[in-house]
């Protein structure tokens, strides 16, 4: 049975109709709302490509159901920053020319931004820990670290 749910995403309310309350948030974001920045990488919570912030903390949207996040504040990469109003980490990402293919980029920036929100001046060790469960198949790990440290050093 179709059910209506209301999601609060990037400071906007979205009413959507879902067939299955267990549908992961990822499919609501991509399919229903058209926010493509969270990507499907594994569907198992193992890679981080689908990362969003829920009430300020990172979560893997492939492994959390839509019904579990009703009423919570959801932020995607698009809500984090735009070309007009970029997040400092997005600027650092460009300055360091971090990415190659960019499929994983969403998870790394969202994870890095969450770290900087709770700790504006992280050490390299803390940044490594924040990135410890993310996957990047292009090998941009050290460049991502440099981007976080660039922001940290400016704090």
């Amino acid at each position, binding site marked *: 049975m179709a059910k209506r749910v209301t999601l609060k995403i990037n400071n906007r309310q979205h009413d959507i109709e879902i*067939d299955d309350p267990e549908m992961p948030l990822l499919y609501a974001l991509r399919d229903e709302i058209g926010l493509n920045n969270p990507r499907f990488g*594994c569907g198992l919570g193992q*890679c981080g490509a689908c990362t969003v912030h829920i009430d300020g903390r990172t979560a893997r949207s492939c492994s959390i159901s839509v019904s579990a996040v009703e009423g919570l504040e959801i932020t995607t990469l698009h809500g984090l920053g735009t070309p007009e109003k*970029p997040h400092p980490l997005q600027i650092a990402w460009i300055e360091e020319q971090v990415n*190659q293919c960019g499929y994983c980029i969403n998870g790394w920036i969202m994870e890095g931004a969450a770290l900087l929100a709770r700790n504006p001046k992280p050490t390299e060790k803390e940044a490594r820990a924040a990135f410890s469960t993310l996957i990047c*198949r292009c*090998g941009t790990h050290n*460049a991502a670290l440099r981007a976080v440290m660039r922001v940290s050093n400016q704090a």
Partner: protein
Amino acid sequence: MNEPSHILANLHRRAFLNGAGALVVGLASHDAWAQTPSAASPNNPAMLATKLDSYLAIKADGTVDVFYGAIDGGQGLATSIAQMVAEELDVDFARIVMVMGDSARTLNMGGASGATGVSRRGVMLMSMAADARRILVERAADKLGAAVEKLGVEDGVVFLKAEPARRVSFAELIGDRSFGSDVKWNGQWGNAHSANGMASVKKPSEYKVVGKSFRRADLARKVFGQQDFPGDIKLPGMLHARMVRPPVAGAVPVTVDESSIGQIPDARLVRVKDLIAVVAAKEWNAIRALRALKVAWSTSIPNFPDHDRIHDHIRSAAVTQRTIERENGDVEDGLRSAARILSAEYEYPTHSHASMGPACGIADVRDDGVTIYTSTQKPHYAADGVADLLGVPREKVRAIWMYGTGSYGRNDQGDATADAAVLSKALGAPVRVQWMRQEALGWDPKGTAAVNRLRAGLDANGEVIAYELISKAFSRENVATNEGRAAATLAGQLLGFPLEPKNTFNIPFASYTFPHNRVGWETIAPLMDRASPLRSTHLRDPYGPPILFGSESFMDEIAVEAGMDPVEFRLKYLKHPRDIEAVKIAAEKAGWTPRVSPRNDIDRSSEVLEGRGIAFRRHFDTFIGVVVEVRVHRKTGVVEPTRIVCAHDCGLIVNPETLKHVIERQLVYGTGRTTVEELTWDQEKVTSVDWISYPVLHMEHVPPKIEVHLIDRPEAAPSGAAEMALGLVPAAMGNAVFDATGVRLRRVPFTASRVKAALDRA
């Protein structure tokens, strides 16, 4: 797709150049795939390889379309190509728009392959740009009533040097119109495609754009989540599909219970011969249907040999083809006369492409034509393959390439696109096929395992007089390196197309010279011939790491036997100055202290042992030396690479920053393939199907220090860089472990348990 390098130009012009101090914070929203015209460029309907118009076009707004019949796999190639064209055309970099991988707008230049984007296609497009500039200057000469020699060109404006106010722009001369002029085409397609113009190109000393670190236009879009990948496309009426794969390799559906998905809204079953899939209007419903569908499968007994004993299988399997690639002297004679003989075998595992994103392909099959949206690295061939698969004329199929997950070889992208084509035809609707994670690892085409047999003979003075390397493996082309034929795709194999396997492997070039020398390869039959989850094809640097692990590790073994430092030993047998310099610079930058390995200046019973190793290769005209430093944890067997130093000579450097990034990133990737990656399977199926069972490198195991030293040779042709350095990581790391511990690792990956066992045996 279009790749306007001026995408950031609405901001600060200087921001293109790194270090210029300007902040790059903006980008235009961009849906190039939707903007591309439905057919070939209006001023070039024929798309002839003999016409300059097929390579570039000057637009009325002053921008320049470059028709690049290949792709940028995410390493920033488009930026370098744009620089090369801007250089020869004398227009600002910001005016260049890269049109890439669209089979209706670009010629088949092969796709990503062998790191030849700059060295072949970039160099060719420089010639095309120089020819365009020549023609435009000649026309300007007519218009301005002055001799060609009296004219200068700056940012697409031709002017009289003595009287700069007299000027005419490229756009005024030809904007949106055809050149109509001929170029010399070599008659080949794909990688072999080449063309030349009449104009001569600039001398490297004249370069203003080539050699500078322009920034990547795609990267900012990706940072803001504004770069569409195939998975982001939504076509009207598009259905989401999931492929239904058998639980046992080789099994085919006998009966399918469609009622098992009856409760899921809109979900439908599609079956075409042995290919089955579920589709739904909403993606999540397709996934639910995949999980709910009940299928009775035929009995299949693949009887795969234990993955852990795959090298025994390779050793004992009948040889299907043996090719000696290079031979001089008589190795058997040389070995007979040797005072000492060394022999060893080195084993390399099977790897998955294990792309970050599982494949996603979209197909829209209509009566009047077929469109596929794909991030395969060879889109023109993907269009060929879909035409073959569907039995439609090739000219009715258009492949639109899009940026996507890094494929690094022939990964699963083309297979998903072929799946989508079959389903779209069956359903009469556009179909988006998204592979699942377990499918991407379990069913992508694989990089083959290999066993390298090595022998060397030294005379009484320790001189190497005989050397032999024979690498035995599955063919690197159980399926072709592109999807250009139906039989090369999983869908085509399920539909019964006759197979077209090739028996082929290769040996990387080696510069060492020995009096008696023989290198060659042997292939064996595939474990399963049709629709195999273990079918082999190209994985990044296809025969590099599997063989160089053996050859460059063994080179160190010979050095030990000869009582020489590994660097000194290599330099003794290398002759080419660029070989020598790559080794010397790598060693020097690493702070290499000469010694015979293993080191004897440490307490071997310490908990942690440190060592360093080197490896070298020449690949075409790219010369690379890599030094790896490791800490070996004796108790656990953990090999911790702490530093990698790379000296890299690929001739002319187009974009130093991008090049450094390309090398640094591949050294990280190579570390993963050396330390953790290994495909596993049981008798029936692949068992490493997620990021736990197929481990890849995570942050904590990435070498914290990676130093890339570029050797710039503007006078030498550019020779490619996108994959060659990674192949040196296994041997350099293994050599470092030996230096630290005195234990020789002969099997990749260097997992803790395997290293611990090797240390315990010693």
